């Protein structure tokens, strides 16, 4: 490999990782939005995955091959525990309840010594690699794509449009909501584990309100018509601050303005296409 290419890859290595990881986070948002649930627990799930996997690596010395699959356990157990009462909530109530849970977890990280308080956990070895991250992302997109194309995807879209009508048509809405929440916890947990194992340090403020909203904005900017759309949204929003480096003083301003314009003029996201599934082709 020529030296400049090596340098190039090294320079953008973190960005390359972040694109893949944020893609997974966008999918974890997508799966709940796809069934019409505005659940904003993704950052919290990510934190649970990151902290539990970092502790497994640092304190228990488990190999990464074991840590990665185990990292989804805590987020999933948490999702199962809170899912019942939480999924009864609708709309903004659900959004704010899930944000609240994230804040409670943040307080736990800050106050329990095991999690290192505000100092977080540092010295996490770099174990995740780009092929692993993108392999997982690819698998997730593929699986969600196949589901989206099937009758289950159709039922999910029906739930998104009118949950009550879908339920009366025989769509098991409670089961699908719980399934979506678990899938969301799994994807975010994996993303948390991967991010902890590429950046050597994690802290409690990375999983609070702001990250939760950022993850939401990935999915909203990209759209939720297909699983690829939120990933594109994540990529745009991850690249944007780097592309705007040259205008550092006002780059956050531009970032905000771009989001506003995108929502106002592309209301269904950057990729506003519907899934191609049986019977979905529209005739003029």
């Amino acid at each position, binding site marked *: 490999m020529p030296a400049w290419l090596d340098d190039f890859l090294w320079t953008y290595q973190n960005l390359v990782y972040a694109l893949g990881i944020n893609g997974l986070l966008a999918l974890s948002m997508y799966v709940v939005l796809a069934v019409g649930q505005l659940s904003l627990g993704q950052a919290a799930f990510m934190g649970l995955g990151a902290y539990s996997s970092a502790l497994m690596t640092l304190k228990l010395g488990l190999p990464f091959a074991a840590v990665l699959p185990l990292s989804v356990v805590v987020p999933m157990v948490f999702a199962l525990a809170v899912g019942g009462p939480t999924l009864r909530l609708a709309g903004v109530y659900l959004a704010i309840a899930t944000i609240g849970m994230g804040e409670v977890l943040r*307080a736990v990280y800050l106050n329990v010594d095991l999690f290192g308080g505000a100092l977080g956990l540092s010295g996490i070895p770099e174990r995740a690699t780009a092929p692993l991250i993108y392999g997982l992302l690819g698998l997730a997109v593929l699986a969600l794509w196949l589901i989206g194309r099937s009758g289950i995807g159709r039922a999910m879209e029906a739930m998104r449009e009118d949950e009550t009508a879908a339920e009366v048509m025989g769509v098991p809405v409670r089961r699908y909501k719980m399934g979506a929440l678990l899938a969301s916890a799994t994807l975010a947990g994996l993303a948390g584990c991967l991010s902890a194992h590429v950046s050597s340090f994690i802290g409690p403020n990375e999983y609070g309100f702001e990250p939760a909203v950022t993850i939401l904005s990935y999915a909203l900017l990209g759209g939720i018509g297909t699983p690829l759309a939120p990933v594109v949204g994540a990529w745009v929003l991850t690249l944007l601050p780097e592309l705007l480096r040259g205008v550092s003083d006002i780059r956050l301003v531009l970032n905000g303005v771009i989001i*506003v314009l995108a929502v106002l003029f592309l*209301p269904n996201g950057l990729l506003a296409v519907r899934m191609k599934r049986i019977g979905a082709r529209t005739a003029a």
Partner: protein
Amino acid sequence: MLAQQLVNGVLLGATYALFALGFTLMFGVLRVINLTYGFYFSAGALLALWMARQGASIWLALPLASLGAGCIAVVLDWMLLTRLRRVQAPELSSLMVTLGGVLALYSALTSWLGPDIRRLPPGIVSADAFLVGDVRVTAAQILILGATALLVGALLLLMRGTRLGLAIRAMAEKPDAAQLMGIDTGQAAALVSFISGCLAGAGGVLIGLNFNAIHPYMGEAMMLRGFVVIIVGGLGDIRGALLAGLALGVIEVMTAGYVSSGLKEAVAFLILVAVLWTRPSGLFGRAVLRRA
């Protein structure tokens, strides 16, 4: 000490309630999570600061800054949300557009004014504390209590006693029906934005005065507590916001005073989650029937 802590709690609660009044109105009537609300709070405080530095007294700066924040709210609502309201976009779009909006607004304000914390000129309100028994209260705190009580009273009067209030309430209950009744929903939305913005601006001035900390991001810092208050109090419920704000303040102070200050923040969200699990539409909210 208990008496002082109770007073501390009520005073803190009053600031929460004061912040939440306009928020709950905006949220409850316009049905959007408008994240720009915190910006009006900051804008009000910074406007008052600017006026005070020009030599205006607090009694002039407070109402003018409040009106200024109201105007900013109307303009931003028009810029960001009218289009979405017209095409009846899903509530997620408005969340997103206001998210982009606040990001741009706070950043612009910060790069213009700098992120420093400022305070209103000392002496604009006496900083001396009054001693009532063992309990100390400052003029700014009394001002906050008084203003909160006054604003709650005025809002209740407006909502219950006037045609305008009736129209706003109709909009909150059934936007479509309100339109059929001949209410110009565009105008009503602008009006609600204006009132909310004014309330936010007044809150920003008073709270900035009380805590001596005025900076571009001050509204952002209040937003999470604001959410807790308006959800626990019930969306659009003025009295609920007052009660929930006071309750939250007292509980936080008591937790920090008698349990552990590390739990002070968590307790707000534990209450929120507990309330939502048991009473999904807020502690004081009416049950929302599932539409079938």
